[in-house]
């Protein structure tokens, strides 16, 4: 059960094929929530994610101040009762910006994930189910996308379209869908050979129903496993893009922006940089713990 949960290569130029391949032969209808929650580390990860999502959802209520409220007379203050994490270079509440940052960072990440799933999974399903020429053509396209270093391509697209959160989500989705397509295709091909699919066909179900009602349901768990593993690197990429100014634009509170804003103050006010850094580390770690847990659950079931 020794496996790499996150390795450095995986962050920017990760070998996406290997990750997909690992999951490809794991068609399991039900991986069992109970089984994967047994491990303490997964439980902890799950809890952290729940906390962060709650914080993100209730940001308007939880944040003590308006994250955009500038008060330069009150800049770079140490933590106090009304500003628990102090204030930044424009006198904005750091805690509020972190909380809203969670909302924005997670929102952008989930949007990218959702978009890649929405593009990748249907393409994979159709390709795997139909087979033949359609499959060959789609597979070659997928191969092209998988061969390109995704971060660089997303960087190029975001750079050409201009820097904004919208363009970033667009360019990342455009690049990251391929692995889901590949995974769902492989799984679909295995499932379509099974007798119940034959039975469904014989029973008069049309292809659309078979694919999206029955096949999709059976491959969902593997796809969720991949998605959970991926969300961590998506969060990192988005923060990275924002840091270099190609993603979400200031003054939107987003963790990458918070990091890049604070780099001028690394000596005078290092805490500005530490807070968003720690937040990113914790969230990414939590998602990877859960992703690892799910994958463990899958392989256990398989055995």
């Amino acid at each position, binding site marked *: 059960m020794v496996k790499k949960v996150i390795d450095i290569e995986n962050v920017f130029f990760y070998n996406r094929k290997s990750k997909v391949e690992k999951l490809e032969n794991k068609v399991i209808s039900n991986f069992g929530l109970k089984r994967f929650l047994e491990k303490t580390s997964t439980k902890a990860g799950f809890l952290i994610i729940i906390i962060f999502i709650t914080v993100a959802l209730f940001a308007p209520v939880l944040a003590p101040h308006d994250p955009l409220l500038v008060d330069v007379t009150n800049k770079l203050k140490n933590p106090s009762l009304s500003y628990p994490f102090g204030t930044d270079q424009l006198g904005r509440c750091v805690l509020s910006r972190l909380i809203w940052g969670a909302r924005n960072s997670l929102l952008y990440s989930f949007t990218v994930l959702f978009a890649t799933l929405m593009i990748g999974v249907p393409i994979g399903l159709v390709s795997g189910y139909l087979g033949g020429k359609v499959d060959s053509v789609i597979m070659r396209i997928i191969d092209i996308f998988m061969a390109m270093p995704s971060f660089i391509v997303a960087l190029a697209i975001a750079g050409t379209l201009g820097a904004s959160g919208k363009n970033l989500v667009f360019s990342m989705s455009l690049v990251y869908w391929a692995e889901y397509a590949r995974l769902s295709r492989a799984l679909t091909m295995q499932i379509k050979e099974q007798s119940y699919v034959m039975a469904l066909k014989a029973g008069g179900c049309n292809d659309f129903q078979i694919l999206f009602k029955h096949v999709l349901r059976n491959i969902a768990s593997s796809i969720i496993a991949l998605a959970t593993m991926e969300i961590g690197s998506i969060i990192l990429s988005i923060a990275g893009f924002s840091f270099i100014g190609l993603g979400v634009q200031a003054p939107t509170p987003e963790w990458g922006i918070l990091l890049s*804003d604070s780099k001028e103050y690394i000596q005078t006010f290092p805490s500005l940089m530490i807070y968003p850094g720690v937040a990113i580390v914790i969230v990414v770690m939590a998602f990877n713990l859960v992703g690892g847990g799910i994958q463990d659950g899958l392989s256990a079931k398989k055995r």
Partner: protein
Amino acid sequence: MNYKKTVKKFLAAGLIMSMLLTGCGAGENKGASSASEGQKTQSTSKESTKEDTITVLTASNIDPEIADTIDTSTNAFQLYEMVYDPLVRYGENGEIEPALAESYDVSEDGKVYTFHLRKDVQFSDGTNFNADSVIYNTNRWDDKVKGNFSAKLEKVEKVDDYTVSFTFDHAAYPIIIEFTYPRPFRMCAPSSLDKDGKFVLGVGTGQWKIESYEEGQEAVLVKNEYYYGKQPSYEKVVLKFVDDGQSRVMALQSGDADICLADVPVESAGVLEDDTDVSSVKDVSTLSFFFGLNYDNKIFSDIKVRQALNYATNKKSMVEDIMNNDATAATGIFSSSVPFVTKENSKGYDYNLEKAKELLKEAGYEDTNGDGIVEKDGKDLTLNLVFQTEEYSNWKTICEFIQSEYLKIGVNIELKEMETAAYYDAIWTTRDYDIIIYRSYEDSWNPHGFLSSVFYQSKDQPSVFWYDEKLNTMIGDVIAQPDITNVQEKYDEIFKYMDENAFTIPLYYPNQTYYYNARLSGVDKAATSYQGIVWEDISIN
């Protein structure tokens, strides 16, 4: 095993964070990869030691390969100052001082400038500098280069071996100042070009010569043994291009750099002041920062909108709270250290939100749907504000501050950060902005050079920041003044007119501070910011 795994994960996460940070560091060193292939070494250098080398940080890309005297695309003024000499130099308070010319005469009618050259000057390749060298250089000046003179240069003649005369079509007071510019009227040796006439590497008469360089990173200069003036007591200056303010600070603190000629982030200034290993020399700067408005944007054609934005600009708070008082709130486009600028002709706008709101209302902008943003004909007043952070690290903070300030009068500002090259493209070619933060030129360019460069429309060049027919005529008129007698009066009119019409939004005049390592002594500011430092007086302790 679980424990082990968790530790591993923590380590990995930590590594990722550091990668995220260093990854961006690499991003800032754009062209680092191309630099290795573009690396060229002119001559085999002697092993340099820390005792005879001074490392200097700049924020403008040092690229000796294209630093031709007549090239106007690079901003590496320090390099120009060190390698090439002008005929006359711009001294303290705008005094015209001798350089390659010992003296000069101007004819009665002000059209003919005769320069008497020094007889002891040699280029750094050992060849003699004389009237023929001047003719060689002036022959390279095409119409575009000559366009940098306020009058049309008709002919250049060699009077004798050490006397040259320049004849212009009419007299203009700025001509002699224009001879002092860091570019494009400086003198290079024929060996700067290859046999096909293509520029290879600058060879001049200056105090320094280029020994080697790495494109986009640094240039190593050694002292020019043929230099006619005072020789420095050390061997080399390394000009290093560092485009991140915080990195410049850290390079100074670690001792990797000796002098920083570029801007440092305002919060770090305190750190450097407290550092006993770092000293500083302060300079009165002729620089000013302002917002340029895009005159193609119809919103700005209404003077009330421009005035409202000026009234809504809280310059006092900007200077006191953000800049920690290390600057002066701007009243006009130029600071009072610039010739012809007076209190009376640059009054500026006070901070007055009520007045700003009123003016916007008069211009037809009102918040009818209660979203806090004013609108006209159902369209929100949204403007983008373009900035860069490589040369002036405080601009981002300033722009974010202004964004929050303008929101108080219901103007929605969208910030757009650009990398330096794209930013300059936006100014000079694409005009892809509503508001853009920019700086004035400095020293000898101010005020006439800057005004005619960005507010003046010639036949083939549209105005850069603002076009106004009357302003255009006035600027054209003042730079055509044969002598200084009426110039003050004309500038009074121009500055007043620009102020009343709010063609720009002046922000502040920064103070110039050069930080240097305390191992150096005798560091003193030069007369112009292009020179920066008086090199020959520095000694390494």
